[in-house]
């Protein structure tokens, strides 16, 4: 099934600059419906009222981290099937394992490039041109 590039994507990061970078990269990949949150709790509120097809989240944020957000999403019957990509500078294997155990769909280590973002998005959403 073709990927719907009109889906709503939620990006979560406490660095405004990083939100802007990811938004621009998504735009270049053809995804224009992008919302932003600056921590996990804000993201959770937006997820509960919105209709999102993909979450791209940083890990290290306050007060709610990306890992906590992931656990909340996976524990919520309405949200649990939304693909969740972690984009983080946390590159220790124990971090990746913890994220995987919490149900992460894919994991991108910062710094990253557009090709990596596209590849990881394709792996969770299906191929898109």
């Amino acid at each position, binding site marked *: 099934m073709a990927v719907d590039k009109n889906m709503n994507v939620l990006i979560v990061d406490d660095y405004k600059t990083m939100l802007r*970078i990811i938004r621009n*990269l998504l735009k270049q990949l053809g995804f224009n419906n992008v919302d932003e949150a600056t921590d996990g709790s804000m993201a959770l509120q937006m997820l509960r009222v919105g209709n999102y097809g993909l979450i791209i989240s940083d890990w290290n944020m306050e007060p709610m981290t990306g890992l906590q957000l992931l656990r909340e999403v996976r524990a919520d019957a309405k949200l649990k099937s939304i693909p969740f990509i972690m984009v983080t500078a946390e590159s220790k294997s124990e971090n990746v394992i913890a994220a995987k155990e919490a149900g992460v769909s894919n994991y991108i280590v910062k710094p990253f490039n557009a090709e990596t973002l596209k590849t990881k998005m394709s792996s969770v959403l299906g191929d898109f041109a």
Partner: protein
Amino acid sequence: MPAKGVDRDLSLRLDAVRREHGDTVRVDQVAEVVRAMLDTTSGDIDAGDLRLYREIESLADYIHAAKAEIAALRPGEIKNEFIASATDELDAIVGATEAATNEIMDSAEHLESLAPMMDAQVAERLTEITTRIFEACTFQDITGQRITKVVKMLKEIEGRVENLVKAFGSEMDAPKAEKAAPTCDEHLLNGPQLPSNAADQAEIDRLLASFD
């Protein structure tokens, strides 16, 4: 004084010091208790007590020497000047790189907005180039996180130095050693000023004009 009486007196004195100062007790206060206890035992000590007395005396000498060495490091100065200055400089780096990154991205977004006005091949190439610019801008997030970690470490060191200063009392705030006279124009080499201290170009121009 019988040994049990000495123990009780020592216990009472230590309790009094603890009540007054909590768990952070200055070395000179400990020395005072030891001195008082030794005074109470004078004329009533045997060979074993004398060995103990010498051990305590050498311990006191050791503590005094260590205290003098730590005071020479001027921990108050480390805390108030060096660490505070280093964290300000690091915060300024984060602010400056963030501002520069946003400027770069503004320009890249403006460039990208020109793509629809170009032929398809040129527009595609332009988009590739702006993508590279956006990718490169991720450096700011990484450097920002690394610098934040360093600032946290410096704050931790600052806290420990502060505890040291508290434990040793006001003697740690010894006057600053006179710095060696700067050679040549060394005193003018201060590096970039923090934004809060820096003069802008208009101020510089006014200053220059004031010489005319």
